[in-house]
């Protein structure tokens, strides 16, 4: 395949393209879903193909195919060029890519145990055991467990001379207890909702999640929620758990700092951003406690890699520093608008999709508080844990997030449980009300395997490093 890729790069050069790259990608996916005593789905999917991206006549074209013959690769090259010529019909100016260092390199994500070599019995057994614990309370109607493993081999080559091979292994798992009584259902998940937590690691990551040790707790918390009152509507202090903070960072900082959104190129589907070009180094995004960084270099993060899908080396870049909005996530094309270099965030879901600016590991830097001290320091408020619902406007200002569980905080102690809790706000006002963030001891990276963007839709694996944080004067409990 490497030789065919090099031949196609030569072929594209002869077609006098302004620029071209080719990406061959092969992915194996294993997916296991257990419900109660039954393995509901157990599948292994193989996927491979290549995509060719060209700039010709100053405009973009992209074509992709799952057929790997030399003839098909030439046909796809020709199609990509024809598409670029069609794009050029409406261009206002030529596409300009900011220069980047050209790499010939290999990258391999680190892991200890290859999950594809762990027996199916072992994997199913762990999930069935966890479900058996969850089912021990008769009010739990559904016990669910899931695992997914991804192995991706990528080769990227460009007419500029880049040739990069990457191999990335990802693993994840989670459990859910759903308790039902009459027409009321309540759910608790571990370690996070929407099928758990994920990392660029091997089966050792699943083992370290301690699913069995947490099954009883999620069971009892789900049952307790059935008889809990709904969170009343009020304005109060909130402490948000680390996993819900991951969602908060994702929606209200990750997406609005994607420079393609800011420049309007995602308007038709996901929308734009309130963090417009005039606001850089001007907008007080949050309190001075708030620093947020895009970091693709952290070992094990689900948003970690060696090089992005434009061949730009993985980087660490501040988006918000001490509360001030200081930077975007960029690509070679969008960075050129700012006369900057790309900070390497262009990734595609697969061989058949163009790379877009995608979050890497977008991390809220840890503060100084112990969680116990933070709760003790809070006279009145609520503690919110694990995301249940999420919605935000198309410029990422007005958000409303729901959580699985909520506990009252009174005089520095956790009290009764509330169900169906939501909180809502306007992004910069909200982040400016942050007065405390927990320390590194409470900080961890949460893998998010389902971030959607683009047309055709692309689902990307991203991550967020967060610890619990406190916010003042937040509107909560406006569910109905």
């Amino acid at each position: 395949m490497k030789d065919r890729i090099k031949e196609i790069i030569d072929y594209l050069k002869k077609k006098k393209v302004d620029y071209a790259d080719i990406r061959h990608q092969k992915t194996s996916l294993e997916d296991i879903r257990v419900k109660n005593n039954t393995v509901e789905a157990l599948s292994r999917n193989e996927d491979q193909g290549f995509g060719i991206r060209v700039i010709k006549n100053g405009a973009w074209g992209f074509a992709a195919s799952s057929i790997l013959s030399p003839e098909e690769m030439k046909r796809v090259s020709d199609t990509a060029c024809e598409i670029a010529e069609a794009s050029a019909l409406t261009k206002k100016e030529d596409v300009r890519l900011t220069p980047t260092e050209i790499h010939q390199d290999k990258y391999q994500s680190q892991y200890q145990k290859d999950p594809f070599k762990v027996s199916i019995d072992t994997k199913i057994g762990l999930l069935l055991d966890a479900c058996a614990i969850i089912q021990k309370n008769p009010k739990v109607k559904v016990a669910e467990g899931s695992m997914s493993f991804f192995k991706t081999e990528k080769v990227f080559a460009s007419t500029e001379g880049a040739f990069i091979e990457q191999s990335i292994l990802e693993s994840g798992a989670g459990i859910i207890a759903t308790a039902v009584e009459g027409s009321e259902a309540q759910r608790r998940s571990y370690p996070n909702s929407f099928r758990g937590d994920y990392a660029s690691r091997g089966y050792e990551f699943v083992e370290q999640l301690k699913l069995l040790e947490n099954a009883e707790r999620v069971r009892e918390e789900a049952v307790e929620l059935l008889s809990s009152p709904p969170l009343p509507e009020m304005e109060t202090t909130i402490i948000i758990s680390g996993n819900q903070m991951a969602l908060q960072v994702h929606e209200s900082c990750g997406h609005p700092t994607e420079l393609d959104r800011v420049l309007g190129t995602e308007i038709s589907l996901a929308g734009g951003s309130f963090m417009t070009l005039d606001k850089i180094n001007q907008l007080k995004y949050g309190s001075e406690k708030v620093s947020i960084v895009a970091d693709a270099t952290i070992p094990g993060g689900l948003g970690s890699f060696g090089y992005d899908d434009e061949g730009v080396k993985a980087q660490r870049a501040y988006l918000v520093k001490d509360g001030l909005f200081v930077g975007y996530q960029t690509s070679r094309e969008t960075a050129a608008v700012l006369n900057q270099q790309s900070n390497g965030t262009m990734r595609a879901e697969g061989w058949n999709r163009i790379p877009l600016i995608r979050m890497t590991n977008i991390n809220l830097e840890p503060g100084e508080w112990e969680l116990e001290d933070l709760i003790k320091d809070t006279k009145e408020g609520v503690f919110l844990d694990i995301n249940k619902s999420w919605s935000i406007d198309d410029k990422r200002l007005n958000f409303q997030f729901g959580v699985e569980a909520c506990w009252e905080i009174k005089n520095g102690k956790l009290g009764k449980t509330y169900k169906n809790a939501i909180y809502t706000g306007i992004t910069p006002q909200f982040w400016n009300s942050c007065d405390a963030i927990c320390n590194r001891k409470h900080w961890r990276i949460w893998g998010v395997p389902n971030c959607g963007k683009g047309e055709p839709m692309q689902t990307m694996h991203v991550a967020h490093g967060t610890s619990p944080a406190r916010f003042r004067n937040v509107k909560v409990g406006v569910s109905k």
Partner: protein
Amino acid sequence: MIGKDKILSLLSSVLKKAEADSADAVYIGGESGLTRFANSTIHQNVSERNSRVYFRAIIGKKIGVASTNSFIREDLEKALYNAIEIAKNQKENPDFPGLPHQQDYSKINTYFEKTARFTPIQRAEEAKKIFDQAQAFNLTVAGSFSNGDTEIAVVNSNHVACYQPLTTAYINLVVMGDNSSGYADQLSRNVDDIKMEELTQTAIRKCMDSKNPKDVDAGEYPVILEPSAVAALVEWMNYIGFGSKSFQEGTSFLSNRIGKKIMGDNVTMYDDGTDESAIAFPFDFEGVPKQKVMLIEKGLAKGVVYDSISAHKDKVKSTGHALTPDSAEGGLALNLFIEGGDSSLDGMIKSAEKAILITRFHYINGLLDTNNAVLTGMTRDGTFWVEDGKIKHGIKNLRFTESMLKAFSNVRLITKERKIINSWWGDVGCIVAPAMLIDNFKFTGKTEF
């Protein structure tokens, strides 16, 4: 296009090698193109040729699934072998009733040659005309225009062998001004049906009419929901409530409510994959013919849709709503219809003393309280204040948080005319929705634009 004979014969031939009690294969493949634009220029323009073949091997009641995106015999045989190996190591699924047997399917036309062959140049030329029309008003356009063909086939060891070729064309337009925007879209199996000029003018008009939007406080208002807005609500209701999984797990708003009145007399919703007037598709991914299923009939909760396994659990027959074999989601309604009434959009506006007219919603989520079908979301791309029977001005976007059981109990008027709205299910599904006037719709917040 590979063609019916080649697909069915290769899959059948590979399945014959299955060392399992039974097996099936699902083929989904085709070619598609999508031209995406923003700031009145094409910035993304893509083409794809791809396929996927799923094999499901059954040993006793143990099921293994494997798939490949190669249509080469040796890769297909390897995928089938993987499915068999997985089945051998699986646990029994007591709810598996066996694979379906050969059945008759509705003969419907879902393929239009011109739609399959519409080129990137043709898409770009249409886009340019749209940009020029918007430019006349100093407006810019974002959106996408896509077309393509797909072949879907299901073959199993019980002699099921069904095949359907289909095409789809879809365009969406967001016309942008300084502080307003307007939206229009259209989905069809036939690209000739797409009314470019009309869509462009609609999006331009909405953008112009919503210039300098005014603030409206959160609270309860009558709303006039255009078909895109109605469909977005129903799409989420489908996800949380019309499928067998949520129903059986007790999280659906239909759980424990079948036969009970949960919406107004004037609300009927059903699924019908065989209605050729929309995005029809005659069988599901197990090869079971699609049945018309009443979900809500005159406000009464009537039922949900099933695949084979979930149907067996409830001792009923599959309604032909299985998803692909790697899914654990049970049956899901992909071809939703909301019955029309006798009103018109103009009539609704004229009848309204005060109301908010909503073109579409953004980023709805319905997972907070699924048993009560509580959804939240934002308005977007054309939200208007209606007073004394007239559209007065644009308003800034609002957040709603509302139970759909309450909302669809408060429907005052429904239009006769319905529109085919694009859904999450791409080539094999859609939502056919009218516009609705709904009283006491609750807005819980607002944004700054």
